[in-house]
């Protein structure tokens, strides 16, 4: 018996491509951090041609039955009852105190079949909320394989691989197709903030779909891409990540580690009109007062960064990969800490140093100048930083 973690259903194709054996763990699987030794090209493929991600480790649940919609409507903060079959919704969900447990997508495959994806295991929470409902919940995490095809050429490639026109498939809608005879669900979704699709299929036929996409995409710059590239793209897109940008209320050890959707910039995804959903009562009350915290973009000022490095005789060192640590933010010119950044990266596309941050609400308006802690040659310094609205990058093609 081997003790190695399993690969995903695409492992036979991805494994030979990982030049530096740079694997990372994700939900009990191993996936590529990057295929090439450096992830630069994989990142640029997202923005200039098309990147192919293996996102199979996502947790996936099928909810079947007469009350499928009712269950989801009860659990998540968005209004599922008003969504039509063929729609996909991004949504957080909360505990009874209105603190976020997780976030993911809800795809309405048919009136009685919904697929939910999540970053953490979610079966128990769904089951706990299903009392009295006529639903069947299936953990499809292992049986459904998933790919994300993201980038300006994604549509052309997928159209050729699936032999269907996708021009009418709108942002956050789904359709079904056959790729080399394999039935797949195609959702116009992704984690990159670009034009892109996610393709869901039976794990047993995963390799055929991979091969078909690679074949169709070879003339369009299709590039298998790993998690390092994805991490940069999702920061540019201002998309938050569980366990990095926020702590699940389920795992929080102290109250202050928890966040409400309003504090995470997700107010838009809370349907207050819905008569009932988990956490509603607290959230309705919370809406009456302005949130104490805001989740925003903060950009590190280049001139400031450059001069800090110049002082020690160095050219500015930029992070070569996205970082995931908590970094203090201060009111300008004072010792008062007013927030912290949780993710950051140099954007090779925008040529800007971007971070995602939690700020006390009075300091969170776009354009405000702050200071971010930065370590230059082992010494703590502060670089001038500026609050920015999210997303940092939002191309027309994403929705067009």
């Amino acid at each position, binding site marked *: 018996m081997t003790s190695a973690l399993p690969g995903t259903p695409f492992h036979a194709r991805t494994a030979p491509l990982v030049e530096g054996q740079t694997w990372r763990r994700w939900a009990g699987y191993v996936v590529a951090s990057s295929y090439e*030794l450096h992830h630069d090209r994989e990142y640029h493929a997202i923005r200039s041609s098309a990147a192919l991600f293996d996102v199979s480790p996502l947790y996936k649940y099928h909810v079947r039955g007469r009350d499928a919609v009712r269950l989801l409507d009860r659990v998540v903060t968005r209004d599922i009852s008003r969504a039509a079959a063929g729609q996909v919704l991004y949504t957080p969900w909360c505990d009874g105190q209105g603190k976020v447990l997780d976030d993911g997508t809800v795809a309405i495959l048919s009136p009685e079949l919904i697929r939910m994806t999540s970053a953490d295991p979610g079966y128990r929470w769904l089951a706990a909320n299903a009392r009295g409902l006529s639903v069947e919940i299936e953990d499809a995490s292992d049986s459904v394989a998933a790919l994300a095809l993201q980038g300006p050429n994604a549509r052309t490639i997928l159209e050729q691989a699936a032999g269907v026109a996708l021009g009418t498939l709108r942002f956050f809608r789904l359709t079904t197709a056959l790729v080399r005879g394999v039935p797949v669900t195609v959702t116009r979704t992704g984690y990159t903030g670009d034009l892109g699709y996610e393709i869901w299929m039976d794990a047993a036929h995963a390799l055929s779909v991979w091969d078909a996409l690679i074949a169709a995409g070879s003339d369009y710059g299709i590039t298998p891409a790993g998690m390092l590239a994805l991490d940069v793209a999702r920061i540019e897109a201002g998309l938050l990540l569980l366990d990095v940008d926020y702590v699940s209320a389920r795992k929080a050890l102290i109250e202050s580690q928890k966040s409400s959707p309003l504090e995470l910039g997700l107010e838009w995804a809370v349907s207050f009109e819905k008569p009932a959903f988990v956490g509603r009562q607290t959230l309705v009350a919370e809406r009456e007062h302005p949130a104490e915290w805001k989740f925003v973009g903060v950009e590190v000022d280049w001139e400031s960064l450059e001069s800090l490095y110049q002082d020690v005789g160095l*050219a500015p060192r930029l992070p070569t990969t996205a970082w995931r640590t908590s970094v203090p933010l201060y009111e300008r010119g004072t010792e008062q800490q007013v927030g912290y950044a949780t993710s950051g990266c140099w954007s090779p596309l925008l*040529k800007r140093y971007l971070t995602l941050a939690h700020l006390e609400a009075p300091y969170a308006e776009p354009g405000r100048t702050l200071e971010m802690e930065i370590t230059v040659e082992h010494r703590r310094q502060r670089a001038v930083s500026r609050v920015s609205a999210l997303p940092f990058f939002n191309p027309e093609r994403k929705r067009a």
Partner: protein
Amino acid sequence: MTRSRSAGAGRQYDAIIIGGGHNGLVTAAYLARAGRRVLVLERRYLVGGAAVTEEVVPGFKFSVFSYVVSLLRPEIIRDLSLPAHGLEVLPLESTVTPMFNGDYLAAWPDADRTRREIARHSPRDAEAYEEYGRLMGLMAMAVKPIIGMVPPDPTSLSLRDLRGLLKVGRHFQSLSDRHFHLLYKLMTMSAADFLDEWFESDVLKATKSASGIIGTFMGPRTPGSAYVLLHHYMGEIDGAYRAWGFARGGTGAISESIASAARAMGADIRLDAEVARVRVRDGRATGVVLANGDEIEAATVVSSLDPRRTFLTLVAESDLPDEFVADVRRFKIRGSSGKVNLALSGLPDFTCMPGVGPHLRGAMSISPSLEYVERAYDDAKYGSFSRQPYMDMILPSVIDPGMAPPGKHVMSVFVQYAPSTITGGWDDTRREAFGDAVVDALAAFAPNIRDLIIQRQVLTPADIERITGLTEGNIFQGELALHQLFFLRPLPGWAQYRTPVRGLWQCGSGTHPGGGIMGAGGRLAALEILGQNA
């Protein structure tokens, strides 16, 4: 700057920029950003000058002249928010040099991989390579403040010049002895001699020396070529020196992004508008006259054209001091390179690395030995194009599939040497003979290339001059030689973007700090016009 009326255009302008190349556009954008009413006049149907993308063969997009980017100043990218206007620089990660014996030398994006590769040729060089790269990076950092300043005039006693000289002096004093000596060597030695101090592998030296000759009329053994080596190291991408990239959509996309930024800031850009001459009254520029006879007034006129074209064709000789005109005539321009763009039905198959691989995503350098490159120069010295030229090639469609129809490719071949004046002069026959020499030299390393060519575009220095207006087709608007740099660029006493005609300014690559898609001249000129340079 005083406001003045413009004739015929319906809009008044404070400043007219002659030429819509990247420097002209940068100047326009900075002036417009400061609230000036700016008009750019471009002779051709598109902006960009030598930084253009054109669909010469239907479906195939060529970066017709300039083809890679690295030197574009990061402060310009930031100040003008060029990424928001469409600039996207894709990495160009490797360089492979095929050799005559079927072997190759490669530099890969990973340092360890490159070290192992070089070790096949010389274990000593493999380790020296990293140290060399580090030191050249330090040298690039050392000259960075110089690149970013208006050259002080060492013969002037003005407070500002003295302050500038003091700044330069202090800066050089801050370098360690070792670094200062190294810098001095770079300013004076030949690329080959300089590289001899570091490396023993001939193919490595040949490939490195190529950076020292690109765009110049020098061979790798010509003193002064080491400086050009350094010039090509000054490129910064994301804070890393010596990083080269390819603009998505080709080089024209860079110009388009600057033009878009300039327009967003309020500048007007008029295409198909050739300027015939600069109007001068009482020693002061008052506007321009277009080739179609239209006159447009402005108190500030900025030429992005090279010094010779500016002062010998746009301004009447009688409006300039005799000594100045003589200096302009002495300014060394000397075109030395040509360009061949190929529309291909498939990918070239290199004997040294058969098939499709990562090498096709980077540069391929035809520089198998120092002697090969020096002999290529010998041909040029004696009035001919190189029979076996040095070539720097990339396949833009591999990096950016949008450059060619699916499954097809474009190849950009920078060729040296192609002197601007060859014995008998350039004509169609010699152009095609030059094109044949290039394809032959290429076929020596990638035999299938002939079968792949759907169409070729051969550009001699004469063609480059005819299309872009660059005198002698010189890509730097004037030799990057020590006697034409810093406070001597373009001319002694006139390095601060001014000219003897009040209100007439220059902003092209012929000014400090020189060529490549850098934009520094355009920016410094604008800041000088605005009185914003310290």
